[in-house]
């Protein structure tokens, strides 16, 4: 009972949240100067511009257009892209899997590597290893993502010729060829999440190591490594779940730049194209879908977290 009420109230909050986000975005993007790329081209006539404005329904006032949009969005219809006439859902569907691939690979790398590095540097707190890891996390946080990407392309694609500079290779590549396309984008995108995970795991681990039950375990004569791996680790990683939810929007943000640098055909590039081309329904669609992803993942993380740590539920 308690649990389902918790879930229901979270669900309600999420819906409100997505609604607020759509209002903000719709009015913002429609306030932007200019208009859809088809109307704002140098080589067209005023007559054609007027005709297209009517055809695309842009002659109606913004609040009316929002109401129309909301009306069909509620029924699950996100409309059609102004640029291509394709359903917005289809255009997003073409790109979303690539961003998800990038995001999941990056998360896996970050969680695994971040976990290991975080735990090791907590155990070896104060040693050169700890400082080294710490230094790299700060460096990772400080380097402009696109600059890092360009430097990597210069080094690995142009000078050494080891890795392809752009694209996914999906069109006719084998799985192993495809992996070569993934390495640099995942590495670059990791700089937005890996440092956070390292730091978080480290401090979480330190916290647990100073807990009384670990001290008890140690005192009871268990070998140190066993203590670390069985007691501390499990308790230290529980809070790490909570951070994953917060990392999702960060990954999607980072994807905009990473995808631009590496010519990766994902949502980041799509949102850029949509905003620049004033493809209003597409901007809205991307917003709804990404906010949805963020909300749902946060929701899942909360549930997972309250499941492993019941104290949360009672707050």
């Amino acid at each position, binding site marked *: 009972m308690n649990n389902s009420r918790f879930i229901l109230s979270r669900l309600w909050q999420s819906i409100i949240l997505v609604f607020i*986000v759509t209002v903000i975005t719709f009015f913002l993007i429609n306030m932007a100067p200019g208009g859809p790329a088809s109307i704002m081209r140098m080589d067209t006539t005023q007559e054609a511009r007027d005709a297209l404005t009517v055809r695309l329904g842009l002659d109606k006032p913004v609040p009316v257009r929002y109401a129309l949009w909301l009306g069909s969005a509620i029924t699950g219809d996100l409309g059609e892209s102004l640029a291509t006439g394709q359903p917005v859902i289809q255009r997003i569907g073409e790109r979303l899997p690539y961003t998800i691939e990038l995001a999941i690979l990056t998360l896996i790398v970050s969680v695994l590597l971040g976990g290991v590095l975080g735990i090791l540097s907590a155990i070896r707190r104060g040693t050169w290893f700890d400082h080294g890891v710490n230094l790299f996390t700060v460096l990772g946080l400080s380097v*402009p993502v696109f600059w890092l990407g360009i430097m990597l392309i210069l080094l690995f694609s142009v000078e050494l010729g080891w890795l392809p500079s752009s694209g996914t290779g999906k069109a006719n590549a084998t799985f192993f060829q495809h992996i070569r396309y993934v390495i640099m984008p995942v590495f670059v995108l990791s700089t937005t999440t890996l440092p956070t995970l390292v730091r978080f795991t480290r401090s979480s681990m330190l*916290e647990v190591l100073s807990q009384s039950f670990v001290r008890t375990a140690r005192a009871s004569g268990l070998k140190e490594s066993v203590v670390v791996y069985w007691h501390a680790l499990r308790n230290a990683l529980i809070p790490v779940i909570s951070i994953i939810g917060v990392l999702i929007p960060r990954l999607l943000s980072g994807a905009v730049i990473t995808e631009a640098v590496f010519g990766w055909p994902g949502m980041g590039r799509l949102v850029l194209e949509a905003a620049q081309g004033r493809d209003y329904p597409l901007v809205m669609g991307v917003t709804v879908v990404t906010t949805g992803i963020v909300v749902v993942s946060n929701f899942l993380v909360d549930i997972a977290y309250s499941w492993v740590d019941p104290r949360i539920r009672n707050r």
Partner: protein
Amino acid sequence: MKDSQNAKKLDTQNTMDIPTRKEGWLQRLKHHRPAYVSFILLIVIHAVVFLGPLVWRADPEALTMEGPQAAWSAMHPFGTDDIGRDVLSRLLKGGQVTLTVGLAAMLFSLTVGTIIGSAAGFFRGAVDAVLMRLTEAMMSIPNFFFVLVGLTVLGNTPFMVVLVIALSSWMEIARVIYGETLKWKEHEFVEAAHAAGASNLRVLARHILPQAIPSVVVVGTLTIAWSILTESAISYLGMGIQPPMPTWGNMLQDAQQYIWTSPMLGILPGIAIMIVVLLYNLLGDGLRDLLDPRYVPRRRRNAKRITNFFKKKAQGVINNVH
């Protein structure tokens, strides 16, 4: 160093729950070597960038006689750029703009965050519900998406760039302030002030907000770092502050076409950005360490507080990566 003086003054005022600090912030900072060194270096960099043009007087926008992509020389220590302007003077001027954007965006987001966070925490009820939902909504938009749309709407003047960066980064501060307001609102000394007839605003300004200063300083420092990175990233997409006004970000973007012929044009501003952001991050981390109870362990914690700590820590750490 107004902040540190204030902090010192205030810290001595209310010593009930937080550890006593007998030293000023700068003194404390000295105990944290990386943060202290970063702090000094940042002062040096700001001095060079803001005072440098008094010594190196070349016009950052004028075309020189040497023409484009000239080699490094005494006349032009870092050569000339793609259309023949002095690179050193552009780095200095660009630094002024970039660092100012970082600071201004931080101050702006601090203001917005403080107003929203304290209003929500202080008045609770409907105000709280609306403001904190808004905060959550903003946090769930990937903030780069917001920045892109925002700049499309507002254009790319320096003020708008600052505004958009600030509007996409105030949520963290709002949450910190919100938490602190809730925490201190019910405290005895606040109630005493109320009883003494102080107005809401006065109570908020004089008694509650000062309690949040330490955590806000940390978040603020990290926000500067994030703002500088964001400015360079939007420049990369061609949506940032536009030339002829140089920024490190748009210099880097400009240099992209020339990575084949004059790679230094891109490497110099890239390194400048990285160093400054690194220093701000190190300073922010140091300040956080200094606030961390474990750094000067004093308080006992129960199980419930640990959870809170993790939640808070999670939020705190998140800032870095913004």
